[in-house]
């Protein structure tokens, strides 16, 4: 559904992303791990168009999109969330969801406000925010903001969902609920790529994991293999930590 080949992003002489390739199929979760500064979010930015990759190819449902605009990729079925929970603060929760739903994939013909509001509401129900439809987004606590960001992504009816640290800053109970939510999104046939530091969640959710370090991929495999991989352990724990793993 989404295929990236040899993605490279240069900032001057710095290789933020160095030739990373991956693909993800409908109903699959690809985890992306790596220490801070490994280039995970920059990789996401090149996929969504927030920055244009210096080199490489990005195929979204078979269509090359490397040089296209952010909103164009969204309308083709690519949605993402951000590391910091962001939303249109002065709009209500429902207005946020409505706006995203009005650009949902495959919406045909003239825009219909009742239809778009219904689609927005349906997305809010999927994350459990329907009770806060009238609340301005600025007044939401962090867990609700994170769920709103996922709801507006779902409202665009994506084929591919990129999640940037969906568990960051959440309590243990909230992490469990979010894991359930992401599992349900996966089961609905969406291809998911998820950057995460919370290993418990990553291991439970991901079918495969790609580990990055200094912009390059150093490991691709199942979560179980990742936990046994000497290089991954070294990158995360430092040299010498690998002996007992």
């Amino acid at each position, binding site marked *: 559904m989404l295929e990236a080949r040899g993605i490279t992003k240069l900032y001057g002489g710095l290789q933020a992303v160095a030739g990373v390739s991956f693909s993800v199929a409908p109903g699959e979760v690809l985890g992306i791990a790596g220490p801070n500064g490994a280039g995970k979010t920059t990789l996401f930015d090149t996929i969504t168009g*927030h920055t244009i990759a210096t080199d490489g190819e990005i195929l979204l449902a078979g269509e090359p999109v490397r040089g296209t605009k*952010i909103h164009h990729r969204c309308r083709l079925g690519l*949605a993402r969330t951000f590391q910091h929970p962001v939303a249109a603060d*002065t*709009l209500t929760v429902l207005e946020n969801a409505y*706006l995203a739903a009005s*650009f949902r994939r495959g919406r045909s013909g003239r825009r219909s406000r009742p239809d778009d*509001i219904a689609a927005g509401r349906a997305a809010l129900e999927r994350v459990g925010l329907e009770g806060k439809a009238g609340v301005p987004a600025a007044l939401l606590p962090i867990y609700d903001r994170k769920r709103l960001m996922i709801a507006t*992504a779902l409202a665009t009816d994506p084929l591919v969902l990129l999640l940037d640290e969906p568990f960051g800053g959440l309590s243990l109970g909230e992490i469990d609920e979010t894991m359930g939510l992401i599992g349900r999104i996966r089961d609905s046939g969406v291809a998911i790529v998820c950057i995460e530091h919370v290993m418990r969640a990553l291991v439970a959710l991901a079918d495969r994991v790609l580990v990055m370090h200094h912009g390059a991929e150093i490991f691709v495999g199942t979560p179980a293999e990742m936990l046994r991989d000497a290089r991954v352990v070294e990158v995360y724990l430092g040299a010498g930590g690998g002996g007992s793993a």
Partner: protein
Amino acid sequence: MTGTFGAVTPGRWAMIAVAVALAAVFPLVYHDPYYMTIIVTGEIVLILNISWNFVLGMAGVWNFGQLAIYALGAYSSGWLMLHHSGVPVPLAILFGGLFSGVVSVLLAFPTLRLFGIYTSLLTFSFAQVIQYVAVNNPHGLTGGSFGFPEVPGLFPDLGQTAYLRAYYWVCAGVIIASCFAVAWLRQSHLGIALRSVRDAPAYTAARGVNPRAARVAAFGLSGFLAGIAGGLYLSFEQSFTTSQMGLTPMSLDVTMLVIGGLGTVSGPLIGTALLTVIQTKLINYPGWQLTVLGATLLVIVVFVPGGIVGLFGRIDRRVRGWVAEDADEAEPAPG
């Protein structure tokens, strides 16, 4: 709530109706020509401020070219009034609006490639260039700093009292129509998209909104209304000088917007009315005019960042909060 956002409550409709009725009968009971002239000029400034507030407050683009757009509306409508006297004056004013709208769209394209302070610098430079060109009076098109030549105006045959009254009503009509238009636009698909782009640009683009398309539309609508204001000013004052688009009126107008509350529907109304009254009261003390202006702006920016409308919104929410707390305390504790 199955199709509209931010629906107007019956109480607010009643308030709007009373305000419109009072505004309509006001010139029938008040005749002083000196103050009526100030009031009509204030109305035209208000139309300009409503247009500026749309692009500045709602679209969130720090566009300082608005007074040049306003001046271009005056010059282009004046050109029609002078050289094509067969064209009815209202049509000439409408032409000025359309001309300004088109120029505003053209200004939007380079402006929207920039961010932050560079947006302000480019649009400010645009305003300066237009002002210098107008001062040079190319082909006698602008009248230079002496002002645009006398034009017929909307009501060439009326006596002073009736003239002022007629302009008062015309401008009031434009103000009411634009307030309703802005209130409607605010909750329209375009308005929601604009506010979302203003709040969170990268996020909004990732939800399918084309930020540039939405903002170009905002520039066009805002420029159209500014051009109408320019044409009205020229036809009312029978003159338009290049100082009308200088730094002094620009800073006065932006102060009115900030004091009233940027991005709100009623903010320009309150800010323009308040500062027009203050400036008129201090007209014999020119030094104090600027001092009071600066001090008011400082106090608002530091203590009431949302402007007067924002302040009332905060007080309203706080009172509601107290009422809700009292209701909670009044209930017997469960168990």
